[in-house]
């Protein structure tokens, strides 16, 4: 199978690069995909599934927003509304955002960036994907059965007494959890054991640091979610009496269990996003990343501190004052490494050579939106203020700013950044910018209003609301439609690119991490011989090549010159 490999960068003379043997055309047929062990194909399969989940979650979001056009009933009644926001939250979190960057983009690029042939356990990798699919089926089955209305947090004793279908969803989430664990485990081992010679820890691209930190959380926090959900199922199905006050159990204990996972989980969402931003900002500024070590360590610090703060979701739950104090203090510890990253990215741009291609537009949007999202976390971390803001739309706005404004925007940045590597095609920069602008504007219109709504006292998870909030809700709803339009445009031009996009150069952006050393579409086995890792942010390694419309490697050019 190594016979038809090309060396990286070059190409068999005559045949255009994108028609050579590559991971997409290496074998054919649906079965070859469903049984593939190739991390790139698995990454793509994840990508498809994840985009579908995003669409599903987004549709529920639009239903939620539409219902809020007027107080009281607009399109559905309370029972259905409650299912909509629950399914919106659960789909977005468990099906979309947690596997989003690591499993889809990460799977595709991680071994490539590392210069490895695959992840450490390819079979386990495929298993993760199947587990995702099975977990997703449970969620879909739940929707078919009539939904679930507990909120994505499944708080007891509501979740143990509601008549909706809690058990199938929790089972689904349980399975999804194992998918996430196995992905994380795989990545950790890959990064530890499959780094080629020359790639020391501090020569790793920052995305790998971020994914590594993420994987640690996935492995160490997710099992607790697993046991929490098992206990919830046991409580509901058998009345085990651990969380149910009617049986002498402690309902607040459930919240500890839940947030022990779910707070670290928000860093599962944001860390890889931050990794993507590091990868994008540097090449689009053509400047070595500023404060590499600080960024690398801050990823690990965020992961570590992230385990210490879960109680900040419980400030009004009846948690003890001691607990509240500890958790509030610890909450602020996470802000510091985040602050470091933001300032380092800014400094990377300083005196750079900044190109405003679509990925960079998203990266800039990220800094703007994540800045707001993160900073509003400071309100929530402050005990006295959180008492007022807890469970209002202020929190809803906060987490959309970090999850959407942070992770989804970074996901889009990464998708556009690696798109040419995935499919060997370019998309329309013009429409890319238009969609980005629409999403950015729509997003702010939707969620900035929600900060005001929330601090004015509008509680979340409210089907009905007092008339004084009407105009804010209407503005927010209009914003969500604008955002939806942005996504539709995005979907259209990406589809167009797949079918008829311009062929991409092997290295269209001038990045110097190893994945850009493969041909436009990487071959099945990634690298014929393990590439030598250089500095991942030293842009003197590549030079603009007007002929191919991309960048070429200086070392390959010279060795080709020697050989020729």
């Amino acid at each position, binding site marked *: 199978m190594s016979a038809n490999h090309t060396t990286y960068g070059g190409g068999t003379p005559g045949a255009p690069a994108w028609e050579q043997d590559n991971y997409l055309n290496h074998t054919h047929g649906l079965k070859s995909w469903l049984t593939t062990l190739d991390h790139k194909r698995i990454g793509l399969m994840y990508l498809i599934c994840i985009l579908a989940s995003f669409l599903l979650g987004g549709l529920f979001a639009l239903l939620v927003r539409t219902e809020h056009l007027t107080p009281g009933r607009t399109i559905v009644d309370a029972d259905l509304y409650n299912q909509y926001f629950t399914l919106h939250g659960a789909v977005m979190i468990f099906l979309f955002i947690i596997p989003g960057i690591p499993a889809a983009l990460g799977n595709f690029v991680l071994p490539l960036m590392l210069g490895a042939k695959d992840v450490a356990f390819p079979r386990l990798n495929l298993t993760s994907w199947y587990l995702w699919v099975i977990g997703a089926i449970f969620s879909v089955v739940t929707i078919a059965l009539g939904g679930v209305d507990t909120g994505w947090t499944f708080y007891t004793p509501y979740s143990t007494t509601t008549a909706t279908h809690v058990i199938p969803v929790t089972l689904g989430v349980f399975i999804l959890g194992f998918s996430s664990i196995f992905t994380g485990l795989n990545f950790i081992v890959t990064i530890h054991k499959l780094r080629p010679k020359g790639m020391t820890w501090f020569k790793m691209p920052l995305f790998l640091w971020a994914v590594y930190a993420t994987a640690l959380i996935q492995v160490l926090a997710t099992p607790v979610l697993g046991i929490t959900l098992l206990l919830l199922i046991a409580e509901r199905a058998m009345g085990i*009496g651990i969380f*149910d006050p*009617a049986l002498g159990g402690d309902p607040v204990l459930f919240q*500890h269990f839940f947030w022990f996972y779910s707070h670290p989980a928000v860093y599962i969402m944001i860390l890889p996003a931050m990794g993507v931003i590091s990868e994008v900002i540097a090449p689009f500024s053509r400047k070595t990343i500023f404060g590499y070590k600080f960024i690398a360590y801050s990823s690990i610090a965020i992961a570590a501190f992230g*385990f210490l703060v879960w*109680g900040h979701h419980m400030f009004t739950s009846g*948690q*003890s004052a001691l607990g509240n104090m500890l*958790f509030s203090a610890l909450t602020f510890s996470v802000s510091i490494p985040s602050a470091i990253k933001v300032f380092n990215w800014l400094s990377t741009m300083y005196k750079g050579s900044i190109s405003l291609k679509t990925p960079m537009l998203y990266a800039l949007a990220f800094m703007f939106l994540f800045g707001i999202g993160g900073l509003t976390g400071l309100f929530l971390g402050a005990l006295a203020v959180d008492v007022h803001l807890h469970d209002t739309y202020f929190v809803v706005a906060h987490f959309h700013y970090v999850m959407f404004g942070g992770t989804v925007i970074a996901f889009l940045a990464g998708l556009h950044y690696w798109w040419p590597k995935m499919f060997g095609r370019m998309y329309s920069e013009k429409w890319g910018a238009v969609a980005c602008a629409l999403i950015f504007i729509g997003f702010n219109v939707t969620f900035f209003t929600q900060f005001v709504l929330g601090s004015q006292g509008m509680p979340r998870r409210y089907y009905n609301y007092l008339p004084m909030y009407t105009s804010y809700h209407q503005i927010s709803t209009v914003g969500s439609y604008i955002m939806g339009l942005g996504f539709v445009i995005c979907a259209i031009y990406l589809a167009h690119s797949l079918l008829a996009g311009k062929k991409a150069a092997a290295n269209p952006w001038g990045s110097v991490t190893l994945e850009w050393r493969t041909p436009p579409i990487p071959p099945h086995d990634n690298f014929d011989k393990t590439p030598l890792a250089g500095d991942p942010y030293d842009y003197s390694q590549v030079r603009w090549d007007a002929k191919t419309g991309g960048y070429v490697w200086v070392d390959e050019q010279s060795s080709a010159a020697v050989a020729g």
Partner: protein
Amino acid sequence: MSHSGGHHGEHAAPGHVVSTKILVGVWLALMILTVVTVEIATVDLGSANLWVAMFVASIKASLVVLFFMHLFWDRKINMIIFIVSLFLLALFLGLALTDTGAYQPDLIPGYAPGMEQTPPATK
């Protein structure tokens, strides 16, 4: 670090080969410690019983981890991972305990309507 078995020449499998002596020794130690815990539990030490039992269990666990599971000879990273997981377990327990312990006085006496031993006033 990992080739200390050295029994089978140049192609020995990676990983340490533990001698039968050590394995039997560990097994005996574990059995003795089991008897010890069982016996100590019959002595009334007040709340110390729990801590003694946990102490003995931890010795047993360490024996298993270090020798049966080769961690004594193994790569450090494996040890680190295992210790981190124990640390997180302690963190989870510790922080959850500082909290929920504190609101015991707020419990409504005899709530748990489902399991109430005293029937409600109706006769």
